């Protein structure tokens, strides 16, 4: 080794940097294109299904590229090509259901969406017509209420864990409970909320706020966890800088630590909202279902988009085709809300931490 590094003569170095034969950069793309075309031709000729054609193309890709590489390049490169091809196939497998789901929802849902669909409820609608307004209103109200409950709870818990609890026994106990809560099945959250409200207000109770409580049970652990990670990322130096100016701890947390972690915390909250906005089971139990618009969280049953989808599909009524169309339309609206929330989360996450409160 020393010889190569220090005492080397020219030929040594010449051998070290020698170039090996390589497949052209476009080789994988070419093989993929050929695989797809070949598989399609054979498949069409033999009347295969789309899935069979795709599987055939994948096999061709995974076999051909490494073989070609083994012939031109070397063994290590061939293994690399094989692994790369497998990774790409796995990626395609993972993406296919997602894309096909989106395509299905858009194809079946888009044609439902019009002014009436978005602005009418289902009150007194028999057969055709009606819309999802009541469900959309319910989803928005319940989700906003759930967020209003979970964000203060979750954020304050995270502040306790990071700034005050440290490694104390209370803090590790709390952390453990939060981890357990992350895994609570949503139906259990719904039953719990129902049990609480039934105990307080009598059995058979259905309330929008109950749905919000159930959803907040699911949101709190997500908010705690993400906010905790974000607060941990705030450098200790900033806290010390604040203490060194004679600033009290709670003011340091409030005015230095939280603003610094703001973007990350907002992203976490938005993702938590996106996670619960499509919950069905707890809302079925505690928020109930109705055909009318109900804007009061504290009285009466409240419809939500997931519950609307569920009932439209399972109890379609007089005109099943129409009701199921409604279900797809509502599904599209729901997915759109989730996508928008995710986009908002990305946007918030990218915002620079800086937002000078007062400029000169």
């Amino acid at each position, binding site marked *: 080794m020393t010889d190569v590094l220090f005492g080397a003569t020219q030929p040594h170095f010449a051998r070290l940097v020698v170039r090996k034969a390589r497949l052209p950069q476009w080789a994988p793309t070419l093989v993929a294109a050929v695989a797809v075309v070949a598989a399609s031709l054979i498949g069409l000729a033999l009347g295969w299904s789309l899935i069979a054609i795709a599987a055939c193309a994948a096999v061709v890709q995974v076999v051909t590229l490494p073989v070609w590489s083994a012939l031109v390049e070397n063994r290590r490169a061939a293994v690399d090509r094989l692994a790369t091809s497998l990774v790409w196939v796995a990626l395609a497998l993972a993406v296919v259901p997602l894309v096909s789901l989106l395509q299905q929802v858009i194809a079946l849902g888009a044609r439902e969406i019009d002014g009436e669909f978005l602005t009418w409820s289902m009150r007194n609608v028999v057969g055709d017509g009606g819309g999802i307004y009541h469900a959309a209103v319910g989803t928005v109200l319940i989700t906003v209420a759930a967020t209003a409950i979970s964000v203060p709870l979750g954020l304050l818990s995270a502040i306790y864990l990071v700034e005050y609890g*440290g490694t104390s026994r209370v803090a590790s106990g709390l952390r453990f409970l939060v981890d357990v809560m992350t895994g609570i099945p949503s139906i259990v959250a719904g039953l719990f909320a129902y049990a609480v409200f039934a105990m307080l207000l009598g059995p058979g109770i259905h309330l929008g706020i109950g749905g919000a409580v159930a959803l907040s049970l699911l949101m709190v652990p997500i908010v705690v966890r993400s906010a905790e990670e974000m607060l941990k990322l705030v*450098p200790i*130096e*900033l*806290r*010390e*800088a*604040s*203490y*060194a*100016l*004679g*600033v*009290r701890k709670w*003011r*340091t947390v409030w*005015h*230095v630590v939280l*603003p*610094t972690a*703001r973007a990350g915390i907002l992203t976490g909250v938005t993702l938590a909202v996106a996670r619960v906005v499509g919950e069905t089971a707890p809302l079925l139990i505690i928020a109930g279902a109705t055909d009318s618009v109900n804007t009061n969280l504290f009285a009466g049953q409240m419809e939500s988009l997931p519950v609307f989808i569920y009932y439209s599909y399972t109890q379609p009524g007089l005109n099943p085709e129409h009701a199921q169309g409604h279900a797809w339309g509502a599904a599209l609206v729901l997915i759109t809300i989730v996508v928008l929330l995710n986009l908002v989360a990305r946007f918030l996450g990218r915002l*620079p*931490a*800086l*937002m*000078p*409160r*007062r*400029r*000169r």
Partner: protein
Amino acid sequence: MAKSIEVTDLDIYYGDFLAVEGVSMRIAARSVTALIGPSGCGKSTFLRSLNRMHEVVPGARVRGTVAVDGQSLYDAGVDPVEVRRQIGMVFQRPNPFPTMSIYDNVLAGSRLNNRRIARAEADDVVERALRGANLWEEVKDRLGKPGKDLSGGQQQRLCIARAIAVQPQVLLMDEPCSALDPISTAAIEALIDDLKRDYTIVIVTHNMQQAARVSQETAFFSLAGAGRPGRLVEMNPTNKVFSSPDHAETEAYVSGRFG
């Protein structure tokens, strides 16, 4: 406003671990005192105990007394937050608040403490602190810009401006130049020289030339071995420490034989 500091038999603990043992020294007002010594000898810990910043670490405590102009810092009933308002600190790595503009960073000491100040007065405080930190000319046209947009040396001077804006009695500096290039270091050292007219300054440094350049008194800390507590070996006027120190260990350290 500058004050002298009297330290008597100070032991500093982290939990059960004795980090610094038996330090006694007198730090003169309106002068620069340098703390030098090998890594792990407790000079930073000692510095942080002078404004009770070491208590930020859970389990940290001291025995002995630290008195600023006769007022003991560790008496029962003394609020560490009040102590830190009187004794400012500048850290090793520049740490301006990333969410604040240059202007707001300088005013952070008042704003974070919710002290209301009139607009004109605030402008005045900012200009005075930035002039005091030799930064005014460089930033006066972009006070609304984020403090993080400045260069490392400018950020460190911004932190010094932030510390002197609250008009402390004493300024503690924990290796303020170790993350900076030579030109920024020269700027900070010139600033320290100016500041000593108004403030009592204690500076921890790994750079012996820096100690020789900026300080009037030098305290040499050392430790007997790994895991043993750090202690003060000697404290003398800087030129004596670097030319004819009292202890052989100091001689060995300042002449570069160890450390």
